[in-house]
């Protein structure tokens, strides 16, 4: 029962991303070609709404269901890992047309070949874990 709410959030997320077409390889290509506002509109309006919701929560000192103040985990400061890691992700995102949310959602839409991409992504994460201490961050 504790997990039902997460299942429902996931279902809602999957529906929204399919209906927005943000899971489409073509939409990602079009975005990187700067030939449509669609993806920028989705990300931009998500960020604006997100800023608004988080600021309101802060002003109202809203508590989460665990009773502590609503809080977003802070990312570590740094430059190399964000630029280099981000660029590596960007290369893969544009090639496969799928980021780590849509990968799973697309399996649900019946694209079973996406399981190959997911397996490769798990392997990529594993190799990062192996090399982590040797990489500049």
């Amino acid at each position: 029962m504790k997990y039902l709410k997460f299942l429902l959030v996931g279902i809602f997320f999957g529906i929204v991303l399919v209906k927005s077409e943000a899971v489409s390889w073509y939409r990602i290509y079009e975005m990187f070609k700067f030939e449509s506002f669609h993806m920028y509109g989705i990300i931009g309006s998500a960020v604006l709404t997100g800023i608004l919701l988080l600021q309101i929560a802060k002003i109202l000192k809203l508590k989460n269901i665990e009773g502590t103040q609503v809080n977003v985990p802070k990312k570590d400061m740094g430059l190399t890992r964000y630029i280099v890691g981000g660029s590596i992700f960007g290369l893969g995102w544009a090639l496969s047309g799928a980021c780590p949310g849509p990968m799973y959602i697309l399996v649900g839409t019946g694209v079973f070949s996406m399981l190959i991409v997911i397996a490769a992504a798990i392997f990529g994460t594993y190799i990062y874990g192996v090399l982590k201490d040797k990489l500049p961050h």
Partner: protein
Amino acid sequence: MIDYILQPWPWYVTGPLIALVMFTLIYFGKTFGMSSNLRTFCALGGAGKKVSFFNINWRDYKWNLIVVLGAVIGGFIAQFYLSEPTNIDLNPKTIESLNALGFNNVGKSLLPPELYSLDSIFTIKNLAILIIGGFLVGFGTRYAGGCTSGHAITGISSLQLPSLIAVIGFFIGGLVMIHLLFPLIFG
């Protein structure tokens, strides 16, 4: 009403709804980060015995695996119960440039059958594209500490500079792939 649901939803509806997903997870005391699940899968497979980065208790992240399960179900519901066959309304210039790269069914489905149909994935080239693409996503997101959900949506919404830098990185990689490498791979 049902017509509106069956058609693609506009960006100004879906963008705020994605923010709502993010905010709901934060309200539940968690966070919105889909790439973290890849690490959990490694831990689940026993990678923690060999590599300390995966020495985490996967049960702490079970909630996020449940979100993934929901996302798969949501994808199924949206595709088979909440959609009618419609072409994706892409820019004609986009369609033209993809035709030139050898993609001939542009916008007729979510993904190009030339890459993802079960008939085409068993060539060495296409298999390599899917594996390399997935590998770069898995390696890059963990290196950068997040993906579109963790950095672009959650990180920027909470006004964090590292996330803005990461998103600039996403675009460097994406632009290099589409503008420089696509003509070499598909041309």
